[in-house]
């Protein structure tokens, strides 16, 4: 495991505060996971609620260490914008994947797993598995 090959994580929310807080939460709960590159992409460029393709592309580029980038989203336009960018072909780093996972729990699972040096498929699987943790 070497730091420069860690999987990058991008957290896309309609709200800048939600995206950056979940990023801080996931990194905090990961403990030794602080080496994992995590970038929030929340809200619109103007600071409002919504989704910005440009913030997402910039966040993905900033966490790309060559081991792939896992993108987690909240809902609606966040999901659709990432899908549209992936379909575009050249807007996101190679090896970028939209991960189907609950936003908060999935982010924690993804960052913790990435901190072990796991590959993108393992990070994706861990985040998706967070759907199965029932609370009641």
């Amino acid at each position, binding site marked *: 495991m070497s730091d420069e090959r860690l999987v990058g994580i991008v957290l896309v929310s309609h709200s800048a505060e939600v995206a950056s807080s979940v990023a801080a939460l996931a990194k905090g709960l990961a403990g030794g996971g602080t080496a994992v590159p995590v970038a929030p992409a929340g809200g*619109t460029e103007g600071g*409002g*609620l*919504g*989704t*910005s*393709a*440009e913030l997402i592309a910039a966040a993905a580029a900033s966490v790309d260490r060559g081991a792939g980038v896992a993108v987690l989203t909240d809902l*609606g*336009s966040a999901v*659709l*914008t990432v*899908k*549209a*960018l992936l*379909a*575009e072909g050249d807007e996101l780093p190679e090896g970028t994947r939209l991960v189907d996972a609950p936003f908060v729990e999935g982010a924690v699972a993804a960052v913790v797993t990435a901190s072990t040096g796991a590959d993108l498929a393992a990070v994706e699987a861990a985040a998706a598995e967070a759907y199965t943790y029932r609370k009641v």
Partner: protein
Amino acid sequence: MLDADFFRRWMTATAASVDREAERLTALDSPIGDADHGSNLQRGFHAVRDALDKEPPGTPGGVLTLAGRRLIATVGGASGPLYGTLLRRAGKALGDAAEVSAEQLAEALRTGVHAVMTLGGAAPGDKTMIDALVPAVDALGESFAAARAAAEEGAVATTPLQARKGRASYVGERSIGHQDPGATSSALLIAALAEAAGE
């Protein structure tokens, strides 16, 4: 035959129409959505118009592809990736031909509409933009005016439907009785196409 200039006129007419109707789109989006459809589309189509003014592409496909990319980049709501995918995919289907026929445009739009359905997971009857676009594309073989009428009819026909996709689906039965904002703006897009064609 339709050249790049025709497609630029279509996009410019759409931007003007969205400007005129922005308040109505946002009003429709208030009871069942998050009241930003008009302003989101205005931002998007202003960006489209500015990009086409600055570096006008020389082909119909180039115009639609650039317009689609700008919508994805600037709208900030779900209509950005949806309309962006519609236009970009249609633009790619037109390739780099300098002129295209109305039949080729209809076929390209059909490809675009299918891409939107795949992206958003919506089918006809879900109370979305698809309910205006599918009948419009079907009628395009007849004339641009027929496509405009079909889109308008499709938009009006969303009123009694219950939303099954997007933000409006959260309000469940309360979405019944409201015309869908996305179907309404789709009808504006098709009306602008007829306007560009002089019909």
